[in-house]
Structure formats: C-alpha cells, structure tokens
C-alpha cells in the first residue's frame, strides 16, 4: 500500500501484550484514514453497553495517508474512544509532530485496550513498542511530562502526547496535549487515557513513507506550499484565528455572557489586533506547515507575569467575552492552566460561564463557589475557577469538573436551561440564534456541539441564506459539508488549508498521488458519506435519537438582543423542519437512524438500520 505503512500497533494494557497488526487494504480504501479509521475501529471493537471508563473501552490513535509526506500541513493525527463526556463517538484531531513521527516509526496507528495495573506510558520507536513505568510522571503537568520523557530517553526529538492531572482525576473534559500547545481537545479522550492508567504515548521514528507518485506529489506539493503563502491564509499567518473576534462581533455572532448576547462591548480589548500589538511573543508553525498560525502570548506584568500560552479564537472567545472577561492576561493564564493541567479550553470556558450565570442568578451561593466573586467579567475569579475545575478542588471544583451539563444536573433549579451544550458537550464560540444553519450543523454533529464537522456557519456569515431563519433546504448544506469534511479529516489535512485547493478534483488528485486510489469526485464524496455514516452508526448503537440533535433551550426560549440582533430566536417548528430535511438528505428516518438500503449501498453493517 502506498501512503500507508500497512501496519498498526495493538496494545493490551491489562496483559502488557503488544502486537503489530496488518492494516487491510480494503479498510484503507473504504475509510481512507484518520476519522474514517476511528469510526471503523470503534464500531468493530466497542460493543453496546460499554462503560466509557472501563477497560473494555478502546482508545485509538490514527494518522492519515498524507502524514509524513511532503504535503503541506499534513502532520495531523486523531485520537478516538467512546466518549465519557457524551456517551457517543469521541475524537479530536491535533497537529504537531506526532503523526509524521508515527509514520516514520513504521505505523499508521495505535489501538489501546485494557487497563494498566499502574501508571505507564507507551514508547514507540522504529518498528517496535514497549510499555514503560510512568509512576514518577503521575501528577505532573503535560508540559512537565513531555520534558521528563525526553530527559529519560535522552532524546530531544521524541514526540509526546500526554494527559495532565485532569485526565488522571477522570474529568470528562480532559484532553491530550502534544508539543506543548497542540491538543486533542474535545470528547474527553484524556479521561479515557486516565481510566486506563495511560499517562502518555511517546514516539520516535526515522523512516520514510512511500507514496504512489513521488515526482507528481513533489510538484503538486511545491504548488500547494506557494498557495499556503498566498492570500487564502493571510489571516492565519498574521493574526491567527483571533482575527475572528472583531468580525464576529460585527456580525453579531460573538457569544458573550454565556451566550446571552452576540456582541461584546469590550471586544477591542480582546481582539486579535490588540493581542498582536501587546501580547504575542512569537508565532510558530507545526512541522510541514508554511502558514504558522500559532500565536504564543506572554503576560508581561501583574500576578501572572511570565505566563506563556498559545491562543486561538475558541479559547480566547470562550474564556474571554463569554465569561464577560476583557483582560488578555487573565485569558492567557487560563489557557495555560487548561493546557498544562489537561482540560479542554472550549468546555472550560463554557462551563465557567455557566457557573457565572448561575452565581449571578443566585442559584449558586458564595459557599458553593468557595467564596469566589464569580460574577461575569471577573478575570481573577475565572482563572481560579478553571484551576479548581481542572483539579476537582473545593466545592466549585467538585461541581463543575465534569462540565456544565453534569453540573446543571447536580444543581437543578432550572440551570439546565442555560447549560450551553449538545449531547452534553459544550458549544463552540459561535452564537446560536444569529447563525441558524451553523446551529443545525453543530447540533447534528456526531461528536456533539461541533463547529468542525461541516463548515455550516459559512452560508450564514456569507449572507447566502437568511441566517435568522431555517427551512428544510439547510439540511443539504450540512450534508454536503459533512461529507467533504469527512475526507479532509480522514486524509488528515489542516482545515486552514482548505482554501488553497481550487476544487474537489484537487483532493482526488492528492489522494491519487499519495495512495494510488484513482477516485472520481463522486467516489470520494461517497467515501466521505460512508465515513460519516459509520460514525453515526456507532452513536445509534449507543442509543442516539432525534432528541440528541437539538441545540440547548436558550436557542428556542430567549430572544437575543444586542448591537446587531433585535429579538433573534430559533423558531422550533423551523428547526424541526430543517432537522427533518437534514435526515431526509442523509436518507435517515425521522429519528435519525440510517436506512438499511443506505447502509447496504455504502457497504456498512445494516443490522442497526431501519
């Protein structure tokens, strides 16, 4: 096989057995890589009724065919498991050196089962792997863990994905960090690793990846590199994703005060433009990336002086305006805590904003929040709340460590209505009511509340649809976006580069040059449809139904008033119609269950179909 090593590691932590298994070519042709392989692995290996934190759950790490090749921005990997946060498919994609290193070590992926008797880490080196003691690493931050493993191995080039204390403490919001600033952020993959006593995966490889047409790929990659330095990616190069702040505020879709508004009166103070002027210490790039979008902030004065953390739009927005906070120093500190203690910044920001709203409404007492003045806008309190939630410390930490949905279940008193979640996972930094196509896409995503599965906000912000209303035609927008993004996430290439590909034929060209698969655009999109349906089938196995595909109640029950929106609200009947339109486009029934005919056509298990 070209583009693949054709092998993956299977690690049983209970027995300590490590085996190399062959990756069947028919699996590669059917699911392509990355996201597709996660769906395949989980569907094959995690039966109905599995407890996400039991040894029977699987945590897998996969690359795509382009990892380790000259294709720009292709060193990306995905980790997946039955999510302890949602109870459905969980996965996250991260950049950095892990993917290319694993391919160079001779493997396409790692599938981990069981539970180690004591803390351990997996070391993969050129064609072999071993389990090593991690007792001394337990309790360490992710950054410390990376450094200590490199010291232990006397190898500065080794790449490390690790969990922090939050994962060890089984927070369902726990993430996995590599290269200090890159995270498998969502779905609680770090929690599953913690439940298995798996502290880290360390990888070092020096081999090559064979591709189908090296000369052709080099020529195409040179062209892609040039395009990566062109206008389509200028925003990412100069300002990073925080450039979205002022634009989203201007469009009225910048969540603030726990999504109660779509604009923020102090947005200039937390804009990407202000950040670049006052906070950015350096701009860095992942391996094989000519864009360099990663903006590293440094706090220069005050109680958090010296704090350094990578800042992207989602983290900045949700720990900033969504908590009413306009202090860039506080936001930078909070991101550092999330990254080192090992918790997802999106879920952290939305959970703290939920607690702030509950506090302001008088539903949480001073004793409940350990005496913090947890009002919106208090940056110091936000930072302390993040620290406590990451470490399950005090009354507040105990309440919010597992996110806003579970915190609201414990608190009750109507606080469930402003827990901004879908499938119990916190919503990304896009306001719901003024971006209604996006809301449909986020709420129907298999991972839950996901802004990365379909690009469904684009027609809203580009004005090609009425973003304040929904109809059945929006289902097609989400359907088409999901199928293409399933390919992007299975190859796996960075979504920031999607603008450099002229059209879908260039994706088929890339696939052919790397793997030799000579697909038409239609065949490629059909593969994307298969990959998405495989993930959906996994959710169906775990009880997914129509009710799981709705946004939080605030979208339907509270009108939005701010500088842009004048009473915007999602009309439930319109949403119902759009959701049914999406199901119809997907050939799923009214409960969102794929039809047997569709599953058979896609070559998937039709047992759960209707």
């Amino acid at each position, binding site marked *: 096989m070209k583009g693949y090593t054709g092998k993956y590691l299977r690690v049983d932590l209970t027995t300590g057995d490590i085996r190399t298994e062959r990756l069947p070519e028919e699996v590669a042709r059917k699911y392509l890589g990355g996201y597709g392989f996660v769906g395949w692995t989980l569907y094959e290996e995690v039966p109905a009724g599995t407890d996400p934190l039991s040894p029977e759950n699987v945590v897998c790490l996969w690359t795509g065919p382009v990892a380790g090749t000259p294709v720009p921005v292709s060193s990306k990997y995905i980790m997946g498991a039955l999510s302890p946060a949602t109870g459905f498919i969980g996965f996250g994609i991260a950049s950095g050196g892990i993917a290319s290193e694993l391919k160079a070590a001779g493997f396409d992926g790692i599938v981990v089962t069981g539970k180690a008797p004591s803390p351990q880490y997996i070391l993969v080196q050129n064609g072999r792997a071993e389990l090593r003691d991690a007792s001394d690493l337990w309790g360490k931050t992710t950054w410390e863990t990376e450094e200590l493993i490199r010291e232990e191995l006397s190898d500065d080039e080794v790449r490390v994905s690790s969990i922090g204390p939050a994962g060890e403490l089984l927070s369902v919001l726990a993430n996995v960090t590599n290269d200090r600033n890159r995270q498998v952020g969502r779905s609680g993959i770090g929690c599953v690793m913690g439940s298995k006593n798996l502290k880290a995966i360390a990888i070092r490889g020096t081999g090559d990846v064979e591709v189908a047409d090296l000369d052709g790929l080099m020529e195409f990659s040179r062209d892609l590199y040039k395009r990566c330095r062109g206008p389509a990616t200028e925003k990412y190069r100069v300002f990073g994703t925080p450039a979205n702040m002022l634009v989203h505020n201007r469009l009225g879709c910048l969540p603030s005060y726990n999504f109660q508004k779509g604009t923020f009166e102090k947005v200039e103070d937390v804009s990407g433009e202000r950040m670049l002027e006052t906070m950015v210490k350096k701009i860095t790039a992942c391996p094989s990336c000519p864009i360099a979008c990663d903006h590293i902030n440094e706090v220069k004065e005050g109680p958090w002086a010296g704090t350094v953390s990578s800042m992207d739009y989602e983290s900045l927005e949700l720990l900033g305006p969504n908590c009413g906070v306009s202090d860039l120093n506080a936001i930078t500190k909070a991101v550092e805590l999330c990254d080192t203690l090992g918790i997802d910044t999106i879920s952290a920001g939305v959970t703290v904003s939920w607690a702030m709203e509950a506090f302001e409404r008088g539903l949480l007492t001073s004793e409940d929040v350990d005496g913090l003045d947890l009002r919106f806008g208090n940056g110091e309190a936000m930072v302390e709340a993040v620290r406590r939630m990451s470490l399950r410390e005090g009354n507040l930490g105990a309440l919010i460590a597992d996110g806003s949905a579970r915190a609201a279940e414990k608190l009750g008193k109507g606080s469930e209505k402003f827990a901004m979640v879908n499938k119990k996972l916190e919503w990304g930094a896009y306001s719901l009511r*003024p971006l209604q196509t996006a809301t449909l896409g986020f709420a129907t995503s298999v991972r839950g509340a996901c802004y990365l599965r379909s690009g469904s906000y684009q027609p809203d912000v580009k004005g090609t649809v009425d973003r304040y209303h929904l109809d059945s035609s929006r289902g097609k927008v989400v359907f088409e976006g999901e199928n293409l993004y399933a390919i992007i996430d299975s190859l796996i290439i960075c979504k920031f580069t999607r603008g450099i590909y002229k059209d879908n034929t260039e994706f088929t060209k890339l696939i052919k040059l790397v793997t030799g698969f000579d697909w038409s655009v239609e065949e490629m999109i059909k593969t994307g449809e298969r990959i998405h349906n495989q993930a959906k089938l996994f959710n169906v196995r775990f009880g997914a139904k129509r009710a799981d595909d709705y946004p939080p109640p605030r979208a339907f029950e509270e009108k939005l008033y701010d500088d842009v929106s004048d009473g915007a609200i999602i009309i439930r009947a319109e949403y119902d119609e759009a959701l049914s339109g999406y199901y119809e486009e997907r050939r799923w029934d009214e409960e969102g269950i794929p039809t047997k005919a569709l599953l058979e056509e896609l070559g998937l298990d039709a047992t759960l179909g209707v």
Partner: protein
Amino acid sequence: MAAQMKTGEGLVRVEFFGPFREFGHRVDLTVPSEVSFEELVSLLEERVGPGFADRAARRNTTFILDSRIVPPQALGEVRVCPGDRAAFALLVGGG
C-alpha cells in the same frame, strides 16, 4: 431579526479590521446619497490615504455591510446608503 445598524446624520461608519488597521480604526464618511462599492472605496482612498484601494481590491478582502458579509461576486451590486455601517476585514474562514 437583525437590528437596524444605522449611524444617522447622513454618515456611513466604516471600521477597519486586520491589516486595514494601517488606515485607522474607523472613519465616519459623509455621503451625498447611496454610493456603489467602488465609489465607497474611492472616497475612502481620498480620506485615509493612498494604498487603500489596492488593499481593498485584493481577493482576500472581506467586505461587511451592516450585519452581513457581501460575497465578492455581489460587490458590484452593493449600494451603501447614509446611515449604513461597513467594515473591511480579512477573509473569514474556519478555525
């Protein structure tokens, strides 16, 4: 459901984001009546200095009128009226 984002008094408020910040944060332009996108850019070039029209013409420019992004292919049909709010920004993508 969009609020009326009018500035009043016959002015068009134009905000600058991203690389457009080199031309300032915002300006209030007096326009006699409705103007086309091209006319707006010319007025801004006179007001904020040379180079603005070139920057605005680049294909990664996003033009926002009131609360929506105007697709590049629709810029020729844009009419900016007194009371409108406009903004120039970099291409909006994912992320």
